[in-house]
């Protein structure tokens, strides 16, 4: 029988955090599932249980479908580009040094790492504000630079106001803000690979590119998987960035995300039941995304994984 001291200790140590967690996290998630099946407006004390009506309505909601499509585009492009860029930088700074002798990084690698990381320390909303100014048609530095180097047609080009460029420009901002963080993550992972493996590959005559593809990539693939999932969760939300760059969904809703749609539906239009149904869809898409990443990694990399364990 545990002593009173032990019991009170465990009760306080687990009970207190758990109480906060249940009240502010678990309970609202549970409620959300229920509200998503009601027509609750949030301001009336009564509401009707409507079953799956909200979800069928969502299927025919053009704005929401457009937002869903935008989120899927984001989830396909942003993690991939970010990870390719970050892996390239990480490879160059860790094993990009001379082809003979000790395996080592390029000179000045510390500087590049510190610089590329620092967008991560800037709040996302501020990153959005900075880039909204950079992209500004007339006063922004992007068009000024382009015009100066001879691309006169960009003189007043509205990057965020044109249907063709609004989404790619927004994607670039998100990629820009995350490359540094994932570079640091991959540098750590690559440093965890024993130097002997690289030296052995070299003795066998493998070039740099070959080494990166057949040695580095397989050995850091678990980290890549983690990165993919984190980035996926981030861009399936993407609220902050889009809210700073194009608060109204961009030209023709080309940059509207589900999160923006949800926020407006709930807090501007007061359709709380309908908004939570959007939240459920968002959560399902996120889970689906994680499941796809896990499956792809498992199917393509099963062999290496078994070898390592």
């Amino acid at each position, binding site marked *: 029988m545990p002593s009173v001291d032990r019991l009170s200790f465990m009760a306080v140590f687990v009970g207190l955090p758990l109480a906060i967690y249940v009240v*502010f996290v678990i309970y609202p998630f549970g409620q959300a599932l229920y509200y998503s099946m009601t027509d609750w407006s949030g301001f009336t004390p009564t509401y009707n249980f409507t079953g799956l009506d909200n979800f069928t309505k969502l299927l025919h909601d053009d704005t929401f479908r457009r937002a869903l499509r935008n989120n899927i585009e984001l989830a396909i492009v942003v993690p991939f580009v970010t990870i390719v860029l970050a892996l390239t930088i990480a490879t160059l700074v860790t094993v990009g040094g*001379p082809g003979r002798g000790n395996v080592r990084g390029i000179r000045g690698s510390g*500087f*590049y790492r510190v610089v590329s990381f620092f967008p991560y320390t800037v*709040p996302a909303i501020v990153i959005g504000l900075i880039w909204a100014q950079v992209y500004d048609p007339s006063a922004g530095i992007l068009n000024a630079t382009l015009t100066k180097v001879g691309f006169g047609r960009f003189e007043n080009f509205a990057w965020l106001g044109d249907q063709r460029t609004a989404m790619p420009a927004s994607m670039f901002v998100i990629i820009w803000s995350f490359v540094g963080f994932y570079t640091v993550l991959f540098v750590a992972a690559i440093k965890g690979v024993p130097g002997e493996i690289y030296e052995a590959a070299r003795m066998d005559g493998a070039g740099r590119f070959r080494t990166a593809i057949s040695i580095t990539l397989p050995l850091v693939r678990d980290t890549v998987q983690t990165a993919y999932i984190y980035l996926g969760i981030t861009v399936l939300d993407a609220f902050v960035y889009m809210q700073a760059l194009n608060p109204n969904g961009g030209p023709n809703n080309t940059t509207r995300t589900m999160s923006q749609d949800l926020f407006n539906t709930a807090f501007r239009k007061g359709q709380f039941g309908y908004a939570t149904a959007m939240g459920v869809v968002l959560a399902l898409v996120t889970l689906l995304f994680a499941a796809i990443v896990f499956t792809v990694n498992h199917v393509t990399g099963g062999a290496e994984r078994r070898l390592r364990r």
Partner: protein
Amino acid sequence: MTAISPDENVATDGRGVWSTGDRAVEATSHVLLAGWSIIVIVPFLWVVLSSFKTTKEILASPFSLPAHWTFDNYTKAWTDAGIRHFFLNTIIVVGAALVLVMLLGAMCAYVLARFAFPGARFIYYSMLAGLTFPIFLAIVPLFFILKNGGLLNTLPGLVMVYVAYALPFTVFFLHSFFKTLPHEVYEAALMDGAGDWRIFFQIMLPMARPGIAAVAIFNFLGLWNQFLLPVALNTDPSRYVLTQGMAEFASQAGYAVDFGALFAAVVITVVPVLIVYVIFQRRLEGSVSQGTFR
């Protein structure tokens, strides 16, 4: 990573091993890396430059230097635009939430990692699940939970929510950390008659300091950057946190934006964290690696 190799390269280490191919690769790498660094740095430098210009100068030419280098924009942003209040609110909320979540998270992680009791695994996994759910799903009910509890639009309410949503991450990483601490120390302390409370606060907590520092850094950045929670749950302008204030500042101005003050506000927001980052960057990068190699 680079083991000292016993072969002839040791003698010629340095310039000697660089072949022509190496130089070409190195040059290309430098060009790529420098290119990316420029893309990262230039927007920041431009913001700093613009923060000293008047709105008129900013709109006239993006490259021009300010006619007079003054801190007018900073004074305007700090006092008139209320960045001062947002800053203070942020420090209160983030500070309180950080201390609380580290304490509660460490307590919870410690018990879950080192005591076997029925339900321990269930609690651990329900915390893990919380890491993956999008906050967006919970935001609407959360709004009403705070409203009914009288915590909506209050700083304590915001602190509680920050704590609750930072808890899964904190518990998850500290859990693996507490698991690695040696059992002998615990048993020796028990033998000496120390109770569980004392063992935790006087022995285990200090021993876990590296792990706690790493998690605290990430929690700080996460909470400092938090946007959705305050925007939905803290709508009283006098209680705005910095991120909200910045968004409001940029959008409310809309047609008559004081761009100079806006740029100054951006600098005020970015620089403190940037300084902390440059000082602690080694430790921070160490923490990232700790996060991946559990």
